[in-house]
Each structure stands twice: as C-alpha cells, then as structure tokens.
C-alpha cells in the first residue's frame, strides 16, 4: 500500500515545529512502527535525518511508544498501543497525520518524542506502599478477595504511556493518577497510607501543569489498557474525604 504521511518535525523543545510530508510504501502485515522504520530507512538512504519517535518493547506493555495518529492517541483501534497497531487497519492511498502527545506537562524533546517525567514525579508523591525489603509477612497471611484483587489489577495494568493526557482537551492526568490510587488503595496493604497518598498525588499532578477533569471521558476511550473512569470517581471521593479529615 502507498501512503502519504504528514509527520510533525521539531528539532528540540525550543524550536518551533511543522508538518512535513513523506510518501511510504507499506504492507498490511507491518506494524505501524515498522512502517515508520521503513520511512526512516528511506530517509537515511537519502542522507536525511530520520524521524525521532519513542518505542521499545513493541508488544504493548512498556508504555514507551506514543504518537497521535489522525488526531487519536495510539491511533484508531480501541485498547491498542501504537506498536500493536497494524497496517491492515489502513487503506492504500491513505494520508496519515502523525503528531506527538500534545500537553503542557509533556514538552517535546524532538519530533514525536516527549518528556513524560512528570508522571514519575506523581508516583514519587505517594504512588507506593512504604515497605522496606525484608519487612514483609508471609504472602498468604494477607488474604485478598479475588474480586478486589482483580479490580486492583485492572487499575494496575496502566502502562504510564500518557495517552489519557494527550486525549484530554484539558491535558489532565486524572486517569493515570487515579489508576495508581485505586491499584494501591483497593488492597489492604495500601489502605494504611491512602489518605496521605491521594492528597499528595493530586497536588503534585496540579503542580506539574496537568489540567482538571471535566468528565469528558476521552482518556478512557483512548487508553490502550482501557482503564476505567470509575477510578477517577473513586479518587475524587477519597480526595475530598481525606481533605475533610485533615
């Protein structure tokens, strides 16, 4: 299939960027990133500068790949990261627009690569259980209801890619933050620090320049792990409760 790509090119965080157009020949079995590999090999053959994009595991779990494809974070398919998106979902002759995540809290590093270290700082604010190595009791001494473990797990599957932020018109990180708050707070081990955790994480999220939630729900729709909106509601409840208690 022959494709026209409109790719965002930006030298670094200080430079201004613009779209450039490329032609590329792909096959339907390729992944989207393999199609970009082909483009980059073409560019290099002509001694040009390849398009920079973040990627690593290419199996949908590390959360490194990003890309807003035709206006949608991770492209058109539900529950799919860019690296797991295959070209069979596109047609010969298509024009595809490729941009970086657009959010104030994710400055562009180069081309399609952004800086997501703000996410790490949200975790640093309280996204952990304070237990040192060696302090643990026997694993089976903390029985956890299967359903509760599953619900916690669903939240814990977040890969920290940032698609929720890129999808949100407000650039909010509510889905990401609430997924961690739910993952830990649903478990008995994590309940002890929950009040402190939720307050500190929400405050850090605000300090990092993420926007507010206005119940649009695009974050959930674009989330490659389909993290549920309930997590946001749960976090809001717990945040207010913790604030009142304090």
């Amino acid at each position, binding site marked *: 299939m022959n494709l026209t790509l409109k790719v965002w090119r930006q030298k670094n965080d200080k430079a201004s960027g613009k779209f450039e157009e490329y032609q590329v020949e792909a096959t339907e079995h390729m992944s989207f990133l393999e199609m970009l590999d082909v483009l980059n090999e073409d560019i290099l053959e002509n001694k040009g500068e390849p398009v920079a994009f973040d990627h690593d595991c290419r199996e949908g779990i590390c959360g490194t790949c990003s890309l807003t494809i035709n206006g949608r974070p991770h492209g058109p398919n539900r529950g799919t990261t860019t690296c797991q998106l295959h070209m069979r979902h596109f047609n010969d002759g298509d024009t595809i627009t490729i941009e970086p995540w657009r959010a104030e809290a994710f400055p562009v*590093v180069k081309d399609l690569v952004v800086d997501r270290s703000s996410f790490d700082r949200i975790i640093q604010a309280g996204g952990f*259980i304070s237990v040192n190595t*060696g302090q643990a009791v026997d694993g089976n001494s903390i029985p956890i209801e*299967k359903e509760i473990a599953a619900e916690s797990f669903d939240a814990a599957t977040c890969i920290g890619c940032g698609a929720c932020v890129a999808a949100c018109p407000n650039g909010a990180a509510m889905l990401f933050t609430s997924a961690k708050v739910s993952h830990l707070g649903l478990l008995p081990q994590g309940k002890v620090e929950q009040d402190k955790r939720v307050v500190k994480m929400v405050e850090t999220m605000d300090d990092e320049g993420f926007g507010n939630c206005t119940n649009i729900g695009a974050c959930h729709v674009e989330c490659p792990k389909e993290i549920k909106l309930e997590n946001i509601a749960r976090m809001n409840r717990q945040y207010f409760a913790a604030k009142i208690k304090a």
Partner: protein
Amino acid sequence: MKLESNVPEGELATKWTEYKSKMNLVAPNNKRRISVIVVGTGLAGASAAATLAELGYTVKNFTFHDSPRRAHSIAAQGGINAAKNYQNDGDSVYRLFYDTIKGGDYRSREANVHRLAEVSTDIIDQCVAQGVPFAREYGGLLENRSFGGVQVSRTFYARGQTGQQLLIGAYQSLERQISIGQVHMYNRHEMLDLVTVDGKARGIITRNLINGEIERHSAHCVVLATGGYGNVFYLSTNAMGCNVTAAWKSVKRGALMANPCFTQIHPTCIPVSGTYQSKLTLMSESLRNDGRVWVPKKLEDVKAIREGNKTGNDIPESDRDYYLERRYPAFGNLVPRDVASRAAKTACDEGFGVNKSGLAVYLDFSDAIMRYGRIEANSQGDHNPSDAKVKELGTKVIENKYGNLFEMYEKITGENPYKLPMKIYPAVHYTMGGVWVDYNLETNVPGLFALGESNFSDHGANRLGASALMQGLADGYFVIPYTIGQFLSGEIQNPVPSTDLPEFEAAEKEVRARIDKFLSMKGNQTVESFHRRLGLIMWDNCGMSRNAVDLKKARQQVRDLRDEFYKDVFIPGTNEEFNPELEKAGRVADFLELGETMILDALNREESCGGHFREEYQTEEGEALRRDDEFTYVAAWEWDDKEPKLHKEELKFDNVELKTRSYK
C-alpha cells in the same frame, strides 16, 4: 588468572545463612558516606537501587529509558517461581534448586542456585507487601500454575503480565527512595564506559541522550543490572533498546564474559512475517499448560495448509502428530524450552512447518476449550450440554486465563486463536551467559558487580520458565544488599573518588573519540542494515543448532562485517542532540564484538548442553550429548581484538549427581 568462585565453606543448605551471619557489615553512619552506582532499572536494577537506598547507601541509578518503569522486565508474561509449597504438592527449596540445576543441564554453580531457591519465598512476600496484585483463589489466597521442566505448581503470576506488575512494584519502591533523595535518578542516560582506579571499579562515563552531554560519575562501586544480549540476533523477543553495551564496555575494561554461547531460544513465539520485521513477540510458556503442540502427519496436508486450501481445523485427529507428547510422554507439552524449541525445528526441518515459510507449528487450544467447557457446564448444573455450549463456556475459561495473550496474538497476526490453532515458532528470548561473577555477584574487577540477566550465574545452559523474574529480584532484593558489604566494608576510609582523576579524563576522552569516529564516517549503509546482517549470521550459524564448520565460517563473516561497519556506516546529525542513530551505532558496534565471542565460545564447547546444541554431539535419537568429563566448566572470555582468551572455572557438584537429562 585464576577464577575464584568464593563460595563459602559449609553444607549447601546452610551455607548462605551462615555466610550472612558472619559477613562484614558497614555501619549506618558509614553507609551514608558510601555511594553506589546502579546501571539499569529492570527487576534487578530497580530492586537493588531501592534496597541499597533503604539500607542507607547513597545511590545513583541510570537508565537509557525515559523512565525506570520501561525496562524490559516489564514484558515478562508468565510468572515467577518460588518454593512456597502452597499447593502441598511436594515442592521444597531443594526441589526448586534441583529442578534449576537439572533444567540448566548441570552447567551452573550449585551454591548460587541453592541460594536462589532459598530466597525465592521471600520475594513473593516482599512483592505482596508492595501491592503486587498476584492471581488469587476464591479463598483469597495466592494461586499457582505449572511451568515447563517441573512437576509441581510453584509459579505465581499476575495474569499474563507478571513482569509488568513485579517491575511496577520495584519501580514504586525506587520512586519512593528518589522522592526522599536517597536515590538520584538519571533517566535517558546511557553508560558508555567503566572507569577503574587502581584496579577497582569507581565510576562510569555516560551520555545524556537528550543533549549529548558526556558526563563523569564516580562512586565507591558499580553495579551492572543491564539485562541480556539477545538482540545480537537482531530479531528476538527483547525490546528494541536492549543491548550489551554497559556489560561489554566493562568486559573491555577487564571483566570476563562467561558462557556467551548459552542462548535461550523460546519455543512459543509468533513466527516471522516479513523482511521488515523489527522484533518477535513471545507467547507465554504458560500456554503450554493447556495448548497442545502439533504438526500434520501427512506432507499433502502441509501443502494444502501452506496453499491456503486447508486450516489446522481441517486435519482429523488421526492425522496430527503431537510430537512433544509422542517423544516425551512424561513431560509432554511441558518439556523445557530448549527441548521444545529443538523439536519444533526438527519438525520444520523435516518439511512439516505449517505456514508459507515452513517455519511454524501449531499450538492448539481446542481440547482445552472442550475440557474446561465440560467442567464449567457441570459446575453450573448442566450435565448434558451441547457441544456449542461446551465450546462457549470453555472459551470463556481460556479467555480468563490467557485473554491478553490471545488478544495480542490476534492483533499481530489478524487470526482468531480461539477458532484457529495458533502458529508459533522458536525465537531468541534470553541469554543465560553474561558477565562472570563470584558468589558475591562480584566480577573479577573488584568493586564491579553484575545482577540479573546481565550475569551468567544461575541458569547454566538453559533457563527454566518463570525463573528470570525470580533471579532478577533475588539478586536485587536479597543477595546484593548483603554481599556488597563484603567489598564496601573495606572502603569506609575512602572518600568518593574525584571525577577529575586522570582515569576519568582518559575514559571520557575515549568515549568522545568513539562518538567522533562514528559521526565522521559518513558511509552509505544504515546501522540497522548492519544489525540485520549480523543477526542473520548469528541465527544461521550460532542459533538453535551449531557445527564447527559453520561456526568457523561465521566468525570470519562477523569480522568482515565489523570491518565493513567501520568503513561504511552512515550516522546522521551530531552528538549534541537527541540522536537515536548514534545510540544504535554504539550498540551495534559492541554486538559485533560480542557476536564473535559467542561464536568462539560455541566452537570451544564441543558438547551439546541446554540451549547449546552442537550437531556433532548428539545421541542416535537426536538428543543433546553432554560431555561432563571435559566440559563441566564455566568458559569465561577475556576480550582481545585478535584472539579472546579463555579462562575456566571448574564446576563441582557435591550435592547432585550429574545425569543425562531426560524428560521422556
């Protein structure tokens, strides 16, 4: 050079406990003044950095990723072993030890493996306490499943994302230490050299991948936790960024590379689909609990399948060869990885491969779907269900167990594995070889340690499933925090070395010179094209089966390729910017040298064991033929541009009898 394993005296079962209670300690007030560099943030690196920081050491932690949470441990699917014996099925520390020694084909160090089995139980407790959401039974207790090469259920898991959940646990502990300033985190920094001062590892040179700044970092010691080198084959299940550079730079500063030819080829991966392919995707070994591996018995059926006139479903039961069940009745589809991979290769070499390229076998869940469906129908009180109903219920059970894996398979191949049998083929997955370490996980360079997949220590010639996560976390949480004290207790008088020392200056100069050389070549071929060519040479000659003639030829080919690389590679841009091509060039340059060492090691090891199969050494039935009298040693290689030198560490087995591994 004599390689001292430094295994403490005493009974195998009590050695570690006794050693721990007598080893040198560093007092809390001194720990504060001692700094440790940890390179890598996977299971081994993150757990080590967090735990060392908890103990009070000042830690500098480095990763080339944009966040420590991205390390490739995250992609591990199936599970983590531990000798908890929660299932009351006869498991014990000794049995886990024995299975690992046997699974590794008697090419690992007894004392290290026993320690691994001992601390395995603590890992599970630690991870539960951190909030890792392991699978649970209805009673709320932890659930287990079986993995290849063993006859007990000792694998703990979190759906098909165990690595992700364990890594996030370790990452969270690490972030906690970062938040209190005990760990200084360097994201997007790549280690490009090791600095030794008076023979001891005292620092590293890094490149800031965003702006190209070359930095010097010093500490009292350096811990490598930089993963494996499977990407030397270009196509592997490793992430694109996985590389050998940090380990290899250490080898070039005097560390030894042990058993580099011991590579694990994983039997169940999605087959290659085209020449543009950038990586391969694993389908967890846990699938072999329920999936049956087969190829057609008749070549005419194979032909019809390849031409698209038949699917696996059209082949009647009597015309299917469930070759693992046939050849290895005792373990069936759950034979270890090396055995399963070779059997798949044999089936395909004989012409029975079931895709266009002839390089695929079936992994079929239809029996499991019906079996689970019947159980489920019974439990719902329906004792006479229709086949369609059984299928529907069974599909749901399989979906609950392996849903994310089936989804991933469908995304990549476009085929529905609930309806058609999966097609799978072996692919490079893990490297048992790695930097040589002693019992303390210290390399032959004092003050340089290696953990997790980056060392060679625990898996011998073949790793059992669900043991990589166990080893990474054992090393990081429960081994290095103790053994590092043996070295650091002798360092309390010494300040953190100055980065102005001539050794740092010289190392930085060399790093800069290498980068300048890459950028000034301005050749005509891309880094990627060299990497692909190297991968093909390695896969064809140093892959699932090897022989002396091809290995010798391959060594020359790799040397020629290296010469060509340094003449004709093209790298655009400058050092002072985000430049992925420049990063890749450095990594491929190191793979070219490592590849040659792997080939040499494979040539030297004139026996077949574990993942290393030399065609010259096999039984009449085509099984691996080990030669214990001559090769019961660790082959540790000292790099030399002309002729790498071999050093041997004899392996002594005082507690297990060396037997021919049989899974029949």
